[in-house]
């Protein structure tokens, strides 16, 4: 019982370096430069509502693409030999260990003017620009975060008891029914944590859109980064609004999870 004391350093740590900083964001967001209460920061944050919408849209599309690509992959992986599964998992993880910035920069090289894609398509007589648009940003996001979708879904799916699947087959289910009634419902927790792990960073990250997007592809993370160095009050207000959005998203995702678990 004495071991409860072991949490004391941790609780102090979390208080000082996690809770207090978040409270400080709240205070800074509701005060002006001289420290008086003010709502003006939220007024200036409101100017960026277009950026908010665009960020959420890009994050939603990227998350949806990741899910559509990753789900079949995870399913296929669970049906392979165990040693092959491990190899595929490793191959999916390796790019994640390259630096975050290098992964985006690799896409800049790939898509830039006279880059490999541009020159290959030019030879076929197709000319165009492939960088500096929303599609390139989404491609970069999917590239950054696809493994975060694959891993949780795969982990949950590979833990499904084979006996359940066999039982369903014995009771006369065909493959589609086994999938629809057994595998899919049991994989929902994996889907939910995958969506969370992709959506949260892709809605809030910066640099991806700076490197791959056009001038109107600024995301909310880029705005925070740009503003915070000069105007911490507005920066905090924007961060706070973003946190609220993400919190609402997480709550909705959790509701889905619970409902499905009961049903």
């Amino acid at each position, binding site marked *: 019982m004495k071991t409860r004391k072991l949490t004391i350093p941790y609780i102090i740590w979390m208080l000082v370096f996690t809770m*207090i900083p978040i409270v400080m964001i709240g205070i800074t967001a509701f005060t002006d430069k001289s420290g008086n209460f003010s709502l003006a920061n939220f007024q200036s944050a409101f100017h960026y509502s277009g950026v908010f919408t665009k960020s959420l849209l890009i994050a939603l599309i990227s998350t949806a693409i990741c899910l559509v690509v990753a789900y079949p992959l995870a399913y296929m992986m669970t049906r392979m030999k165990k040693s092959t599964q491990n190899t595929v998992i490793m191959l999916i993880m390796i790019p994640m260990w390259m630096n975050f910035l290098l992964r985006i920069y690799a896409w800049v090289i790939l898509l830039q003017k006279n880059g490999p894609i541009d020159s290959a398509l030019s030879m076929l007589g197709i000319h165009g620009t492939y960088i500096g648009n929303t599609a390139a940003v989404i491609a970069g996001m999917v590239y950054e975060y696809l493994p975060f979708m694959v891993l949780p879904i795969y982990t949950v799916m590979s833990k499904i008891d084979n006996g359940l699947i066999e039982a369903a087959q014995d009771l006369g289910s065909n493959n589609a029914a086994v999938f629809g009634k057994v595998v899919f419902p049991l994989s929902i927790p994996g889907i939910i944590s995958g969506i969370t792990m992709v959506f949260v960073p892709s809605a809030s990250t910066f640099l991806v859109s700076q490197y791959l997007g056009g001038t109107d592809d600024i995301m909310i993370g880029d705005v925070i980064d740009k503003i915070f160095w000069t105007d911490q009050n507005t920066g905090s207000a924007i961060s706070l609004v973003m946190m609220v959005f993400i919190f609402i998203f997480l709550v909705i995702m959790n509701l889905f999870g619970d409902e499905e678990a009961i049903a």
Partner: protein
Amino acid sequence: MTKKKGGVFTKFYIALILIFLYSPIAVMIITSFNKGKTVVWKGFSLKWYGELFKDKAILGALVNTLTIALLASFFATILGTMAAIGINNFRGKKRAVIQNVSNIPIISPDIVMGVSLMLLFAFLGNIFNFEMGYVTVLISHICFCVPFVVLNVIPRLRRMDQSIYDAALDLGCNQFQAFFKVVIHELMPGIISGFLMSFTYSLDDFIITHFTQGAKFQNLSTEIYAMLRRKIPPTINALSTLLFVTIIIIMIIINVRDRREEKRNSGR
């Protein structure tokens, strides 16, 4: 018959995904050997590697990245393991509160953690008269690493048989001996995976370091960011290639070791 069809489709699908994942890296590696300054091929050359090794800033940043990752995961592992053991003895509401607070750094976006820590350090810096740098980056990295350790150790504690701890006490160990001789062995897999997760996240971090680094400190990510701003990409390609090769070598070593261990275990 359907199974065989599925097999071909599976291979095709996985191949497509691997092409998607690796073609940007492949292009980067090829470009690193290009004599020219852009992607247009001008002939084979190793000159960007030469430039890279002349760049003292990158080597310094590499050392910073590695020491921060090691120190941060070390401290996070100690703090997190202690916390997990303590949390495991709480019940009900108190436990739920502590665990939810533990999750805050994981679910809150990196950028929010970054700016919030920056506010804190700027505030404390004004009072105690210090500047952001190595230590503030280290503290920030410990912050986002600790929850991974807690999350990895708690399941091991739940699975652990409480009676082995009691047995150690009955056999004359004091609490510390019981912990270091018995309990820690049971927790080791969780502690190690918590440490490794912390280490990888710390190596890869850009956003939180960006906000807490101050004026002089650079790690690899922020150094690359600065290089991209100065528009000197060819050396970056060489750097990426070397990093990629290092990762591949480490993975192969780990894999070979695992295989050997598997063989040894199955031989027994």
